[in-house]
C-alpha cells in the first residue's frame, strides 16, 4: 500500500475515505456544526461587525496580557510535566517491579478529580493551615506560614503537573517499552557515553511519542479553566477564563467568540507545527514485545534509584490524594463539647451519602452515581475507539494522501475549544429533531468523546506508524486476508496503545465536569456533579460528603484503570 502505484487505483482512494467517514460525520454534526452556529449567533450580535470584536481584543492591554499569560503558563507547565514525567516513563518502560500496575493505576487518578476537590487536597497540604506550613511554623517558631501557595503561579504549575503527568507516563512510557533496548546497548558498546546515547539514539527514537504527549499536555494547559480559576485566583486568567467571564458575567458574546476563535487558531497552529515535526521524525522501527525490553531490578543501585524516583513521583501524585481520603474519615469538628479538639475517626460522611434526609427530589445514591458515571465512561470508550481507530489507521497508513494532511490537525480542535462556547453551541444548533439532543443524556458521552477522540488518535498513530509496511506486505504475500492483516499484525502490535487510548477515554469521561458546559438531566448526575452539589453548600456534613464521594471516585478510577491494565494479558496486548 505504500507503493506509489497503489495510489492511483480507485480502491486506495476509497479506503481512507471509508475510514474517515464515521469520525468526520461525527465531528461535523457534534462539533463543527454547533461551533459554527454559536459563532454565527455571536457575531450577529456584534454592533461593530465581524472585525470589531477582534479589534477590541487586540486593543485591550488587559486581554493581550491574558493571551500572553495563557501561552507562558502552558509552556512552563508542559516543561515541568515533561521533567517529572519522562524519567517516570523510562522506569515504567524499562523495569519490571512489584506493584507496577498498581502504581500505574494510581498515577491516573489525579486526572479525573474535579478541580475544587484537588484545590481542597492541595490546601490541606500546602495551604496557610496545611500540614507543611504548620510543621515549618512549629519547628522554626515562625508566626506566619512560610509557604504562600494560595493564589500563586506555583499553585497553577503544581496542579497542572499533578493532573497531566499521567499523559506523559502513559503515552511515552508505553512507546518506550516497545523500543528495542539493543539499539542503545549497541551505541554504548561502540563507545558512546550514556549522555550521547540518550541524545543521539534514545531521544530521536522516542521523539514521536514525546511530541504527541507534549502537544496534548500543552493544549490541556493552554485551555485550562478550573485550575486557573480555583488555584490561581483572581490575578491570573487564561483565554478560557476570560471567555467565561465575557460570556456569563457580561454577556458580551461577540468578544467571547473572537477570543474562542483566537484560542482555536492557536491550537490549530500548534497542531500543524506538530504534524510537520512528527512527520520528519517518524520512522518505522522494530517494536519489541515488553518481555524482551524490560529488566528486573537486579543491582542494588537500580533498586535504590527506582525506589527513590518512584517515591518522589508517587509522593507528588498521591500524597494530596491520600490527605483527601484521610480527611474523609476524620472529623475535626468539636461537636457539642467545645473542649474536644481531637480529630475523631468517623464513617458518618459515607453513611450519610446513602441517606435522603431532606426528601430531595434530586437525591441519588452514590452507588448509582458511580454506576451512571461508569455507564457514560464505557459509552465514551466505545465511541472514542470506534471513531478514533479508523482515523488513526488511515493517518498512519496513508501519510502522503493530501486529505490526511488537512484532516490530521483538525481532529485536535475539540481539545482547544472553549467549553463554554461549545456548550452554548449545542443549545443553538442541536435543537431540531432527530437531533434535538439539548437535554438528552446521550449528549454527555458525545461531549466526552469530543475530548477523548483526539487522545485516542494521538495515542494510536505513533505506534501504528512505526509498524514496518513490509510486515503487512509479507503477511499479504503469504496469503493473509486484509482483515487478517489488521487482526494479526496491526492490532497485536498496537494493542498496548489501544489500551492506553481506552484508559484515556475512560478517565476523561469519569472526571469531566459537564455541568458548566452542558444542559444536564438532574436525574442522571455523574459523580463529579454530585461532588459539586455537596461542596457548594455550607456545613461540615456537606464538606465531608464531598470528600467521601471524591474518595469513592478515586477508588472507582483506580479499579477501572487496573481492569484496563489487566485486559492486555487476556487478549491482544502481548505478542
Amino acid at each position, binding site marked *: 500500500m505504500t507503493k506509489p502505484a497503489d495510489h492511483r487505483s480507485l480502491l486506495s482512494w476509497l479506503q481512507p475515505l471509508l475510514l474517515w467517514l464515521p469520525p468526520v460525520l461525527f465531528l461535523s454534526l457534534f462539533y463543527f456544526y454547533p461551533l459554527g452556529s454559536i459563532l454565527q449567533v455571536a457575531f450577529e450580535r456584534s454592533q461593530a461587525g465581524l472585525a470589531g470584536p477582534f479589534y477590541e481584543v487586540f486593543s485591550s492591554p488587559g486581554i493581550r496580557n491574558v493571551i500572553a499569560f495563557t501561552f507562558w503558563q502552558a509552556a512552563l507547565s508542559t516543561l515541568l510535566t515533561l521533567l517529572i514525567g519522562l524519567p517516570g516513563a523510562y522506569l515504567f518502560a524499562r523495569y519490571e517491579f512489584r506493584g507496577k500496575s498498581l502504581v500505574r493505576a494510581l498515577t491516573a487518578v489525579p486526572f479525573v478529580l474535579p478541580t475544587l476537590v484537588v484545590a481542597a487536597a492541595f490546601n490541606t497540604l500546602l495551604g496557610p493551615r496545611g500540614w507543611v506550613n504548620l510543621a515549618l511554623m512549629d519547628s522554626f517558631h515562625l508566626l506566619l506560614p512560610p509557604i504562600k501557595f494560595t493564589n500563586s503561579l506555583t499553585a497553577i504549575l503544581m496542579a497542572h503537573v499533578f493532573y497531566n503527568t499521567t499523559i506523559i507516563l502513559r503515552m511515552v512510557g508505553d512507546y518506550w517499552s516497545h523500543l528495542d533496548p539493543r539499539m542503545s546497548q549497541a551505541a554504548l558498546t561502540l563507545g558512546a557515553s550514556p549522555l550521547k546515547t540518550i541524545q543521539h539514539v534514545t531521544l530521536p527514537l522516542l521523539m514521536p511519542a514525546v511530541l504527541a504527549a507534549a502537544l496534548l499536555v500543552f493544549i490541556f494547559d493552554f485551555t485550562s479553566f478550573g485550575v486557573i480559576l480555583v488555584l490561581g485566583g483572581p490575578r491570573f486568567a487564561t483565554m478560557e477564563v476570560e471567555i467565561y467571564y465575557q460570556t456569563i458575567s457580561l454577556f458580551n458574546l461577540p468578544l467571547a467568540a473572537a477570543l474562542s476563535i483566537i484560542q482555536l487558531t492557536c491550537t490549530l497552529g500548534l497542531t500543524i507545527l506538530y504534524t510537520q515535526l512528527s512527520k520528519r521524525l517518524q520512522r518505522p522501527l522494530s517494536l519489541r514485545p515488553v518481555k524482551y525490553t524490560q529488566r528486573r531490578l537486579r543491582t542494588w543501585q537500580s533498586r535504590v534509584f527506582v525506589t527513590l524516583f518512584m517515591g518522589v513521583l508517587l509522593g507528588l501524585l498521591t500524597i494530596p490524594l491520600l490527605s483527601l481520603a484521610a480527611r474523609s474519615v476524620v472529623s475535626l*469538628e468539636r461537636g457539642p463539647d467545645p473542649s474536644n479538639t481531637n480529630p475523631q475517626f468517623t464513617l458518618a460522611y459515607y453513611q450519610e451519602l446513602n441517606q435522603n434526609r431532606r426528601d430531595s427530589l434530586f437525591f441519588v445514591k452514590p452507588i448509582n452515581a458511580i454506576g451512571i458515571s461508569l455507564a457514560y465512561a464505557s459509552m465514551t470508550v466505545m465511541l472514542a475507539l470506534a471513531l478514533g481507530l479508523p482515523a488513526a489507521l488511515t493517518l498512519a497508513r496513508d501519510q502522503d494522501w493530501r486529505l490526511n494532511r488537512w484532516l490530521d490537525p483538525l481532529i485536535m480542535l475539540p481539545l482547544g475549544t472553549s467549553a463554554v462556547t461549545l456548550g452554548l453551541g449545542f443549545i*443553538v444548533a442541536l*435543537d431540531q429533531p432527530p437531533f434535538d439532543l439539548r437535554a438528552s443524556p446521550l449528549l454527555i458521552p458525545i461531549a466526552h468523546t469530543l475530548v477523548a477522540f483526539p487522545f485516542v488518535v494521538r495515542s494510536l498513530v505513533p505506534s501504528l506508524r512505526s509498524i514496518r509496511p513490509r510486515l503487512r506486505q509479507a503477511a499479504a504475500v503469504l496469503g493473509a486476508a486484509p482483515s487478517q492483516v489488521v487482526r494479526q499484525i496491526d492490532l497485536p502490535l498496537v494493542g498496548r496503545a489501544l489500551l492506553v487510548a481506552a484508559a484515556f477515554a475512560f478517565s476523561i469521561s469519569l472526571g469531566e465536569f459537564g455541568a458548566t458546559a452542558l*444542559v444536564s438531566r438532574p436525574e442522571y448526575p455523574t459523580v463529579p456533579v454530585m461532588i459539586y452539589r455537596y461542596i457548594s453548600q455550607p456545613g461540615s*456534613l456537606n464538606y465531608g460528603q464531598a470528600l467521601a464521594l471524591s474518595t469513592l471516585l478515586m477508588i472507582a478510577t483506580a479499579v477501572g484503570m487496573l481492569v484496563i491494565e489487566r485486559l492486555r494479558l487476556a487478549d491482544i496486548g502481548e505478542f
Partner: protein
Amino acid sequence: MHRPSSLVIGGIVLVILALSSCTTAAMETLFPTSQSTSVPTQEHALTLKVMTHDSFDISEEVLAEFEQANNVKVQFIKSGDTGTALNKAILSRENPLADVFYGVDNTFLSRALNEDIFEPYDSPLLAAIPAGFKLDLESRALPVDYGDVCLNYDKGYFVQQGVAPPMTLKDLSQPEYKSLLVVENPATSSPGLAFLLATIGNFGSDGYLEYWEGLVANDVLVVNDWETAYYSEFSGSSGKGPRPIVVSYSSSPAFEVLYSEPAVDEPPTAAVTANETCFRQIEFVGILSGTQNRELARKWVDFMLSRTFQEDIPLKMFVFPVNSEAVLDQIFLKYLSFPDQTAIVSPDEIALNREVWIKAWTEQVLR
C-alpha cells in the same frame, strides 16, 4: 485490496454506535432515581419542562402533589449556574428548551427582560407578596424567594481574641480586622458581585472604590469562588482556613447546624446582619415565550408562589419565601437573623454599570 478491512471496521463502528444508543435507553431502567419513580405509573397526558440553575431543589412529596393534582410530569432541566442557565434560555429563545424558567436573580433580571424571553403573567398569588420584591411591574418575572449575602464570622476566633466581631462595613478597614477578611471576585462569583453591590449601595458609585482601597490596605484576600473562600480560607468552616471573616449568606450559620457532623446545637459561625451590610438577591420565575403549555405553565408558577412550595424552599435551597403567608421552620427562627434593611442597587443600575464597576474594582483591588 484493503476495502474489506475498512468494511469490517465500518461494521464494528455501526454496531458500537447502535450499542451506545441502547445503553442510554437502558440507563433509565438500570438506575431508577427518585425522579423517575416519584409519580405512580399512570399515563400522563403532558410533560411540563422547567429550566433552572444547578442549585434548584424540591421535596419529592411537594412535587408529587403538583403532578398528581394536574396529571402532569414535571421534567427539570438544570443548566449550570445562574448566568449560564440564563444565557442558555436566551440563546434558545426561538425554540425554547422548556416552558418555565426559574432562577434569574435581580443582578441578571435586566438581561432577561431586555432579551424578552418571558411572557407576562399576572398570577393571583402576587397579592400575597410584598411590593418590595416585585421588581418587574409587567409581571414577566415573578419573585419566588430571596437570600441575603452577608458577612459571616468565626465565633470562636473573636471569643478567643477578645475582639468584637465587625458590625458595619466600615469596621472592616479598622486595624483590629487586619488580614481577617476573605471575599469573592465579583467577576466570577455571584456572592462576590452581591458584596460589591452592598458596598456600592453603602458608599455610592463614587465612594465605593475609596472604601475598597481601605480594605486592600487592611489586607483583604480575594478568591474566585465561594467554595474556595468558605472551605479553603474561612476558619469557621470544616476546611479550617486561616481567615475568620468571609462573604457568604445569612443562612450559612443555619446550614452549619443542620449539616453538622457530629451534630451541634449552636453554629460555629454567625452572620452580620446590621443595617445595610447585606445585599439581597431575589430570584424570579417566568413563563418562557413560545410555550406550548401555557395553562400548565401558569399553574406551575402559581404553585411556586403558593404556601406549599414556598414553605419547602428554605430547607431545600436555604433561601427564603417571598409569600408573606408562608411559615418558616423552627430551625430558622432559632438560628437566623434577618437584616432590617439591606443595601439597595436597582436591577437597571446593575445592568447598566456592571462592567464599569467590575473593571474599576479590578483595577483598584487586584492590580
